[in-house]
């Protein structure tokens, strides 16, 4: 039966994440925006706090660990790990996206491990903090065209190549690296490998200076004859040209609704705060009467809220599908495309609506407007999402709709 409210069963985890966002992230949000590349030591405390919460019997943390695709069940609907993770990230990113991306052991690489790893690997990499390395200087959205190679030599993989834009790439314990087993075999030959920091041959060569999410480290990494155990290839080493990208790309079905959640969080932060500031100017939001009889500011707040709700509900839909074992590639892309573009538009408009106050560093509005831009870029740009959706709708292969 159609019911689109957040279930009571997930309220504790939402509340828990909100408390962290409010009492841990917000107070230090500006500090680490200014001190880019300084390690937020508060996060160690947070990791301990989260471990304590789970040990104390509270529900699993709000990060990306523990995401898995549940088998479709006959005994009713599930609101499970995918939904609680999205909702948790929403709250954390209401606090601060950069800090949320820096929570130990909650990296995007962890989502990849969960999505692709086999049972033994899941156990072996449990508790690891894994970053995700896909993009290269010559291949961003065009991820089938990566040049990093993996060659089997005895019982070890030998990796060579260069990765950029690796979120948490210097702070994480490990990096999940995308590399090709054979450049001539296209996307089917691309596999993911877990490379622990400290492995000889892997080096962090640079930390990027960025417009937003400055609390999060974004690293460039080189791999030079970097040797890792054979068992660190996630999933299956077979090259199945029919199945294509399937394996590694599955990660995105899990992570895109999460990025949508981040967008929903930062946009809500901006909307709420703008509304508070405008209330002091006598602008009140009322959900009745003709939209055109309202002040432009009130009408704009309502329009933004409607768009924001759309992103939020599309996120919940994609997560609900994953929790119930329903394939959701297109819906995951839809949620990310909508929520991210809305978050960017909303945060920018909120700066504009609040004028000098919005533009000033006295408020966090201008920071949110800088932070939000990355959401429409990483884990697949807006345009890549549109391609995925359009190919699915039109029944086109990537060779036809390029």
């Amino acid at each position: 039966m159609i019911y689109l409210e957040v279930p009571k069963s997930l309220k504790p985890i939402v509340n828990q994440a909100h408390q962290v966002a409010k009492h841990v992230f917000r107070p230090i949000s500006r500090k680490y925006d200014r001190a880019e590349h300084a390690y937020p030591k508060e996060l160690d405390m947070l990791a301990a706090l989260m471990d304590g919460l789970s040990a104390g019997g509270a529900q699993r943390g709000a990060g990306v660990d523990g995401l898995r695709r549940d088998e479709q069940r006959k005994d009713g609907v599930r609101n499970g790990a995918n939904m609680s993770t999205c909702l948790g990230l929403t709250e954390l990113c209401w606090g601060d996206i950069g800090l949320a991306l820096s929570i130990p052991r909650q990296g995007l690489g962890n989502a990849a491990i969960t999505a692709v790893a086999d049972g033994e690997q899941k156990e072996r990499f449990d508790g690891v903090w894994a970053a995700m390395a896909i993009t290269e200087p010559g291949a961003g959205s065009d991820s089938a065209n990566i040049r990093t190679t993996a060659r089997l030599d005895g019982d070890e993989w030998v990796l060579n190549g260069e990765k950029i834009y690796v979120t948490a790439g210097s702070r994480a314990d490990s990096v999940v690296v995308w590399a090709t087993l054979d450049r001539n075999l296209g996307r089917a030959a691309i596999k993911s490998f877990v490379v622990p920091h400290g492995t000889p041959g892997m080096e962090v060569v640079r930390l990027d200076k960025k417009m937003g999410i400055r609390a999060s480290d974004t690293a460039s990494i080189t791999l030079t004859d970097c040797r890792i155990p054979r068992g660190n290839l996630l999933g299956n080493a077979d090259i199945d040209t029919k199945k294509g990208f399937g394996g590694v790309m599955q990660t995105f079905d899990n992570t895109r609704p999460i990025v949508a959640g981040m967008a929903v969080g930062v946009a809500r932060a901006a909307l709420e705060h703008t509304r508070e500031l405008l209330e002091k100017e006598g602008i009140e939001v009322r959900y009745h009467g003709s939209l055109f009889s309202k002040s432009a500011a009130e009408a704009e707040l309502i329009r933004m809220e409607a768009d924001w709700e759309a992103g939020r509900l599309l996120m919940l839909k994609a997560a609900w599908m994953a929790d119930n074992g329903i394939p959701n590639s297109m819906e995951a892309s839809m949620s990310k495309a909508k929520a991210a573009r809305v978050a960017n538009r909303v945060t920018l408009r909120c700066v504009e609506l609040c004028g000098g106050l919005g533009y000033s560093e006295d408020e966090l509005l201008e920071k949110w407007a800088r932070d939000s831009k990355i959401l429409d870029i990483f884990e697949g740009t807006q345009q890549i999402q549109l391609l995925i959706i359009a190919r699915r709708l039109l029944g086109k292969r990537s060779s036809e709709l390029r």
Partner: protein
Amino acid sequence: MDNEKIINEVMGGGLRALNRIADSPLVERLGLEERTQQLVYEGAKRVVETAARAAKRLSTKRPSGRQGSSRKFDLSLSEEQQLMRDTLRRFGDDVMSPAAREADENGAPPADFLAAFSELGAIAMSVPEALGGAAEGVSAVSQMLIAEDLARGDMGLAYAALAPLSFVNAVVSWGDERQQADLLPGFVDGDETAATLAVVEPHPLFDPATLRTTAKKTSSGYVLSGHKSMVALATSTKWFLVAAEIPKVGPRMFIVDRDTDGVSVSDEPTMGLRSAALGRLKLEGARVPQEALLGGDAALKSAGKVAYRDAVDRARVAWGAMAVGASQAVLDYVVPYCNDRVAFGEPISHRQAVAFMIADIAIELESMRMLVYRAAGRIDAGLDGRREAYLARTLCAEKAMEIGTNGVQLLGGAGFIKDHPMELWYRHLRAVGVMDGNLLV
């Protein structure tokens, strides 16, 4: 009434309604026997169960009300909703779509259209068993799905079909016992289809909460004055449900017979929705009895205020559902068209400029759907739906028209000429931002 009598009456009404559906030649023509049998089976099973419960207490409660607070986020339909959906989609494809163009040109639905719709059982399945119908309870979600699936067939014809259904919904939800007993059986049995809602008024910046139409109290009843706009089936209807402001009380709804002195109706040709035979209703000192007030005298108190607010929310859900259905028709049409249409040596869908427009249609369509579904779900769960219905309307007003205009754009010149239904949908979809009333789920 003793228990046995109650059981018999409840079962009688429900089974009569189900029997009519099972008997329908239209069902056979559409090849829906299997679906319908299932629908009838489920309905019959429930009629028996409800009859047993009814012996204890007659209830028109919403079905979800008893599920308590442990509910989960859920996008799945009940079996009955899915069956109704399958039936109405077939009806939309096989009956509504082919009739849409001619009905638009005639400015009226085909002669047998309303009877055919009634035959499918959508009205009987909307009236609770306790009131002689075949529904488990009233459900805004079920009504919303009906509106969506009909509008996917054709939004103009959907407006015609939904006008009497909306009238029935209003009487079920807020009518007093006598109004329900007088009015509902005819609609459940399919003998009666001539009813419509008259809320919208013909002036800019219309707001259903501040009506210009007034209902002044007299010793014997009310005197209604004002104009109502874009009323479906206006010249052929028998019953109007008119929204009017009672001074010092607030907006309320009145059941008005078209033969009342002071009531006049004229055609009102519009940009789209023409197949619903829209008309202008003029009320010039029209005297109606006290009993015309929907819900009776109790409606003068807060119950009537709540009912009217609820009606406004439910109108927004209805038009939102119409927007979703008609936008779905646009998406379903542009996909094969752009795959077949070749330019520069390949299908135009191979170009990102085209493909991205289609992806955006799909994203915004799903966005609208989620907001509309959420508002309806809240109403069924007994939660306040005012904010959600308003946001759904706000989003649909903007995005539905965007989808309409992009649909025409994707077809190019073909979208502008009447060989294709796209220009009709474009005209229909402009109504989403205009209509704020005249239907309800």
